[in-house]
């Protein structure tokens, strides 16, 4: 279910831990699997558990405990907007409202074209750059409605290297 590249990456993660501690690589293995498939369908969670010789339910416990795992499909771009206190004080609610209006979908929903999902998350640890959001591997900081509009335009135009 996973590419050679993903399996090799999981093997590298596995090697960080003592040989009898395969379970330590579970968080990483789930992350790598999700990166390849976009989300973690149940069959994939079970497959990952099998790779590390763990009971499926153990992997499922972990997959449902940590907030970065998506057990349902999400858009190509998932806007994880921080709503914790410093971002809140700097207008994160307005950012979320603007996103919902601009994309026509609500919190936790994905646009029909499969491009965007909006999510509100708790503190991203970048409070001085509030309001902030996580977009894939990067943070987008000091968000304004205008900066979001530019970003959405770029992403729609196929540019996902924008910062």
């Amino acid at each position, binding site marked *: 279910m996973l590419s050679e590249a993903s399996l090799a990456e999981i093997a590298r993660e596995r090697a960080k831990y*003592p040989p009898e501690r395969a379970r330590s690589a579970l968080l990483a293995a*789930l992350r790598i699997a999700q990166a390849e498939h976009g989300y973690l369908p149940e069959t994939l969670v079970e497959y990952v558990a099998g790779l*590390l010789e763990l009971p499926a339910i153990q992997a499922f416990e972990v997959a449902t405990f940590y907030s970065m795992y998506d057990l349902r499909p999400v858009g190509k771009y998932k806007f994880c907007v921080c709503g*914790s*206190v410093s971002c809140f004080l*700097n207008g994160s609610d307005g950012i979320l409202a603007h996103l919902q209006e601009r994309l026509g979908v609500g919190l936790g929903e994905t646009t029909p074209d499969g491009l965007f999902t909006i999510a509100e998350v*708790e503190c991203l*640890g970048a*409070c001085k750059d509030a309001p902030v959001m996580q977009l894939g591997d990067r943070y987008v900081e000091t968000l304004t409605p205008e900066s979001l509009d530019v970003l959405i335009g770029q992403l729609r135009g196929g540019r996902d290297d924008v910062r």
Partner: protein
Amino acid sequence: MYVNGVTLRNRGLPDSHRIGVYRQTGGYGALAKVLQGPMSPDQIISEMKLSALRGRGGAGFPTGLKWSFMPKGVAGTKYLLCNADEGEPGTCKDRDIMRYEPHRLIEGMIIGAYAMGARSGYIYIRGEFVEPIRTVEAAIDEAYAAGLLGERILGTDFSFDLAVHRGAGAYICGEETALMESLEGKKGQPRFKPPFPASYGLYGQPTTINNVETFASVPDIVLHGGEWFLKLGKPNNGGTKIFSVTGHVRNPGNFEVPMGTPFRDLLGMAGGLHPGRRLKAVIPGGTSTAMVAGDAMMELAMDYDSISKAGSALGAGSVIVIDDSVCIVRVVERIARFYMHESCGQCTPCREGMGWLWRVLHRIENGQGREPDLDLLQNVGSRIEGRTICALADGGVAPVVSSLRLFPEEYEHHIRQGSCLVTDSRSVA
């Protein structure tokens, strides 16, 4: 004043995260001093004690003392962990250390490992911090390439391996035993103590864990001596400390200043309040610490003991500034949501109580408060406090209870009038 002089000294330099830049500015000199000086592990620990460095992750436990707890001559691997699961609302300093000064952190860990006899270490970085993760991983690679990590470091008998472990989104993993569980591939649920990590930590082995900033402070302490560091700050509150000043300030940021710096000065560094605004309240150490009224805060110095005397805590130095444009009920409701969301679910009072607090606050905020609700919040809070395995729940109660004490009129207005005393906060929504 010694500003931005220790853990963020190189922040402004180009390529400050590269080993070359770090070495040119004296980096890994402390490690050389330790290994080639040589300094004995006991000497290092006594310098650490002398420095009065206290844990920068929030709990403020004396670092030298913690290091001295690590047992000697036990079988099996001893582990050294770095807590880089920065996630307390208001805290954003470790991210900058990792982005700009990863080698300072690594050097501090190597020295710590040498002092405590740890053979293996992990830096647990929250999963959202992809950029810092990549920076730290690249720095680790550079350190291995330079013979600073791995077998026989700098040609001595001392060996230490270090790797990054990525989190996956859970504030609770910043609790040290939850972090260890998570490192073992489990849900991040804190362990009951005793046993303490020094005897039963990662994989059941003796383990010491420190915050990023704590480790990053180590090289300078070793290089210049504990005495030097202590004198940067105040007795029992040694050194400098990064304060993340966020919220309603004009130039939010990380400011590394001596312990005991007046809050007033710190606020000034952050550009002060927005024009025309009045300081309503400050949360001095991240949302798990009690709120302090703005006026009182203006008179306080930023160190563990001063803030503690004012009924709050310095925490991780996460200063959240709240002006008069926002209703305190809304702020506290938002904070309570965080703790409900981040409770691991293990202990009954936290699992059930955090949601209860939030639901009552949410009702009050939405004009459906009732007269007994304020007593209820106090009551529920008092049933949660001190009755759980870890401190998450206590942290969630602190802002609720302190705000009830400081701003009863805002709550009462919500309940009696069904509307907000700070009307213009509505415009934000």
